């Protein structure tokens, strides 16, 4: 297990290093100088030069890349070109909306998908299976932001159960905060739940055909007991992979959903930064998202080994 974890850890560090290089140099090729942009077209050359020095833009690229990396490792993402405040603080504020939203959605999607997938697999070929599969087929096709608008129309505008947008803030209590994230989380979760339910069903059906399942039935377990005791644990591997992948889609999806609900999350921050050409903010948010995706996949790899001891032995 230790060797497996170390190998994965090495691959994690390598991926992060390459990803950070790609992001840094893509942003570097952006036309225009941030200092000139901030000061406007009438700025004096010496003022621009002074600001360039202040922002650390006058040192060679390689050196800037290394200090950017070292800064991020220490939690310092630099200073926003537009707001002149630390980027780390801006991101931390927004993360308190985006991260709980993604986790809330992930929880909902798992809670919906597991029973739906298990139900469909247990009733393969029967009407119950057809209904679940039909619903998931539709769920996969629905754009989450459109679904979000429909939720607003029904539950906020017509029924008035929820606000149409905005975030109440965590300082008013956990429940109030969760309440204002509920519609966005449902909108994010349902299409993902559809995918997850399909994977769950298909993974279970694969396992149900295996020899050891026949053995389990032969030793006297009922179909249901065999499913719960043996099939589920084995089906968890493909399901875990998808959950890991989904987290990245949920974080990215949260950026879009935040626009529907006017939530002050990472999405709003990054879109404002793009229009203000605040490239250091864009760079940091993108790096954070990619960091999250790579790290979650690393954790999923480790979780595999816990669920399936064969993987530990193999690598």
């Amino acid at each position, binding site marked *: 297990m230790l060797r497996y974890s170390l190998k994965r850890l090495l691959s994690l560090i390598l991926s992060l290093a390459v990803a950070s290089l790609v992001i840094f140099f893509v942003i570097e090729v952006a036309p225009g100088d941030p200092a000139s942009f901030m000061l406007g077209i009438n700025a004096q050359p010496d003022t621009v030069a002074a600001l360039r020095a202040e922002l650390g833009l006058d040192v060679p690229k390689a050196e800037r890349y290394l200090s950017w990396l070292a800064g991020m490792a220490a939690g310092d993402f630099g200073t926003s070109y537009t707001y002149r405040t630390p980027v780390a603080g801006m991101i931390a504020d927004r993360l308190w909306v985006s991260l709980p939203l993604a986790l809330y959605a992930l929880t909902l999607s798992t809670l919906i998908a597991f029973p739906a997938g298990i139900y469909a697999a247990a009733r393969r070929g029967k009407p119950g299976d057809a209904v679940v599969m039909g619903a998931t*087929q539709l769920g996969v096709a629905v754009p989450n932001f459109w679904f979000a608008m429909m939720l607003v129309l029904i539950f906020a505008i017509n029924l008035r159960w929820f606000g149409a947008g905005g975030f109440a803030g965590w300082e008013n209590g956990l429940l109030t905060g969760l309440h204002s994230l509920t519609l966005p989380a449902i909108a994010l979760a349902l299409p993902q739940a559809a995918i997850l339910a399909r*994977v769950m069903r298909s993974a279970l059906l694969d396992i149900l055909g295996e020899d050891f399942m026949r053995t389990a039935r032969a030793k006297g377990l009922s179909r249901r007991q065999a499913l719960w005791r043996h099939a589920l644990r084995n089906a968890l591997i493909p399901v875990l992979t998808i959950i890991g992948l989904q987290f990245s889609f949920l974080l990215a999806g949260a950026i879009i959903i935040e626009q529907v609900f006017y939530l002050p999350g990472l999405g709003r921050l990054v879109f404002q930064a793009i229009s203000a050409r605040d490239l250091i903010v864009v760079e940091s948010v993108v790096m954070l998202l990619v960091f999250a995706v790579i790290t979650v996949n690393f954790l999923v790899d480790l979780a595999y080994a816990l669920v399936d001891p064969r993987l530990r032995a193999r690598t």
Partner: protein
Amino acid sequence: MSRNLILGGLLSALVVLAALTSFLWTPYDHAAMNIPAKLQTPGAAHWFGTDHFGRDMFSMIMVGARTSIAVALLAVGIGMGLGVPLGLAAAARRGTWADEVIMRGNDLVFAFPSLVIAILITAVFGPGAVNAIIAIGIFNIPVFARVTRGAALSLWERDFILAARVAGKGAARISAEHILPNVANLLIVQGTIQFSLGILAEAGLSYVGLGAQPPTPSWGRMLADAQTMVSFAPHMALIPGVAIILTVLGLNLMGDGMRDWLDPRLRGRGG
């Protein structure tokens, strides 16, 4: 042929037909504003109603189908064009450092969701439909590379490949002449799935302003326009949404149907 394939094929054909017809004919000029006729609900004069500028939504949906299809199709083209050769090369050099580099590179690209790529490209070059194509296309590359490699790996163990090797053919020639035709079915099915995902991604990118820019009509932009009007003109949000859902549903059903048709072992499995 399965019911899925027929229904999916019909839905997809309808969308393609609407897009192609829009080059020759639309009920109204899709960009023509007519403020006195704004926010009309669907009726005889305007089958899908009008938007807040009085533009005919039916014409906009027809022309928007063009944008969606073009972006998604080109993105699949990029993904296949680069991903398939990479996958074939990785399989041909399986177990070597070349395979390892290609597959780790794929993992890395996988860590950049298309929205994140689009954010990066837009931050550098500004928004536009081309960004959407590149962003979705890049995300498609590792998908096709993995599918191709996975299928090609088992083929390399087969007797007919051994025969080709004995006949003196090199790895590149075997990949092109024997492996590729045998994975083509799988690639067509995956292409259909990525095409439908591309339609969804294009809509999302246009919705947040990273995709097609006005005056190019796109379903995602129509939804962005509809957002503030949804309480008094719900048709503005409903119609583009239903257009996206039916297109994606059609393509997915077609993909499922084709998979079952091409590989009877999978029949009734779904997933």
